[in-house]
């Protein structure tokens, strides 16, 4: 009877331990994920280094390389501000260097050999068995994905702020239905009832071009009407505008 009691005790002990197994696991591996902290980022820290675009929602289509920002889109920095209802960003393969390179592509030969090799990764090698330095070299030769075009649509407003050191300076504002930014040409073209304003002056035209590489200079193509305060003048010159 005593032996029965001992056996019963042993089994009960083990079962009790088994019953608490999930709790033991949770404690044992809980610390493994402690490095995954996402709460330490403050908005102020982010905005110190980069211009942040805000929007109500976003659709990121990695298959077609299109990113769409939807609703109350705002791009704001110290000198420029763009607002619109929708912003579509297009990516394309480009031989130019991107900031952080491109993803590694698998080497077919390496992957064929891979199947036979044990999954041991030597220091300085990746899982394809290639030297990490060789990989870095390969990155430079591969095509990169870069932003090729950005299209803003719906109540587009571009504002070029007056320089703070210019007491007579006034903000320049351009409005249109659509704005297309061409990354190669570094130009923004505003179309669809475009109008440029500075103070009480307004200028209408076929389109407005903003030359990024020329200090964001704005010019109105084929300006039709100058409006200054209560009076307005017609003008048939082919282009107008200025810094």
């Amino acid at each position, binding site marked *: 009877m005593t032996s029965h009691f001992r056996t019963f005790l042993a089994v009960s002990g083990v079962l009790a331990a088994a019953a608490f197994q999930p709790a033991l696991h949770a404690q044992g591996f809980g610390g493994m994920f402690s490095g995954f902290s996402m709460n330490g980022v403050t908005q102020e820290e982010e905005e110190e280094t980069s211009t942040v675009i805000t929007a109500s929602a976003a659709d990121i289509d990695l298959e077609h390389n299109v990113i769409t920002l939807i609703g109350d889109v705002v791009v704001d920095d110290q000198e420029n501000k763009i607002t619109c209802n929708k912003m579509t960003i297009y990516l394309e393969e480009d031989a130019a260097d991107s*900031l952080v390179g491109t*993803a590694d592509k698998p080497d077919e030969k390496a992957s064929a050999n891979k199947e036979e090799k044990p999954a041991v990764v030597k220091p300085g090698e990746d899982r394809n068995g290639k030297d990490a330095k060789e990989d870095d070299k390969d990155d430079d030769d591969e095509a990169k994905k870069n932003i090729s075009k950005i299209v803003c649509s719906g109540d587009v407003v571009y504002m070029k702020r007056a320089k703070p050191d210019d007491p007579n300076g006034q903000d320049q504002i351009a409005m249109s239905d659509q704005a297309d930014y061409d990354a190669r040409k570094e130009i923004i073209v505003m179309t669809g009832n475009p109008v440029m304003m500075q103070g009480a002056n307004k200028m209408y035209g076929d389109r407005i071009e903003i030359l990024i590489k020329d200090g964001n200079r704005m010019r109105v193509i084929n300006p039709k009407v100058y409006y200054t305060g209560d009076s307005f003048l017609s003008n048939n010159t082919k282009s107008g505008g200025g810094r």
Partner: protein
Amino acid sequence: MGLRARKIHALSLLILTAALCCLRPGTPISAQDISSGSYTVLKRYIYPRYNGDSEIQYLVYGATAINKGSLIYLTTPMIDIVDGSYTSIRQIDTIDAKDPYPAPYKLGSEEKILRRFWTSTHHKHSQAWIFAEKATFDKSTNILTSDDPAYFRSRQLDADGIGFDAFNDRKFIHIRSNVRVVLRLREKALKIEEPAPSTSNKGDKQ
């Protein structure tokens, strides 16, 4: 008495052996039955998804995963959207469960941090990563959803937001609200995002 005692001993040993098997250290899986049905708790969850050509499309990670039917409830989920035609998970340096899971870098981090992340062996094969605190993965539709803050990271742009739906088979991610994006344009084109050239030390920011 002797026969009965032997039967009891044999039964006890059987139970003991079964219990010891469950207690094997490091076992990443445990199961519990509850009155409403059964579920499985998985630790260090990794789920690779292949397309019709047997290429890896993406990997879903989770610190823990509770599997109830076709739904998997993940904590600290990460989606690694793979770029290229990898046909075996052994070609990819997956996140080592012994190390802490990688955290997403801050939105607008400086270049050296971005380079360190994207040249890491864990990320070199990646097109993009999505991080969150909790998410639900539907295995039948391959859609991952979350109401919590989400962090999308790619080489061209980073985005933070609240809530997301990741249609993994289409590599399509919808961020539901409060979206904040940082674009990485080509160096010259960064002027659209950066202060105008007239301001001194402007170029130093990037």
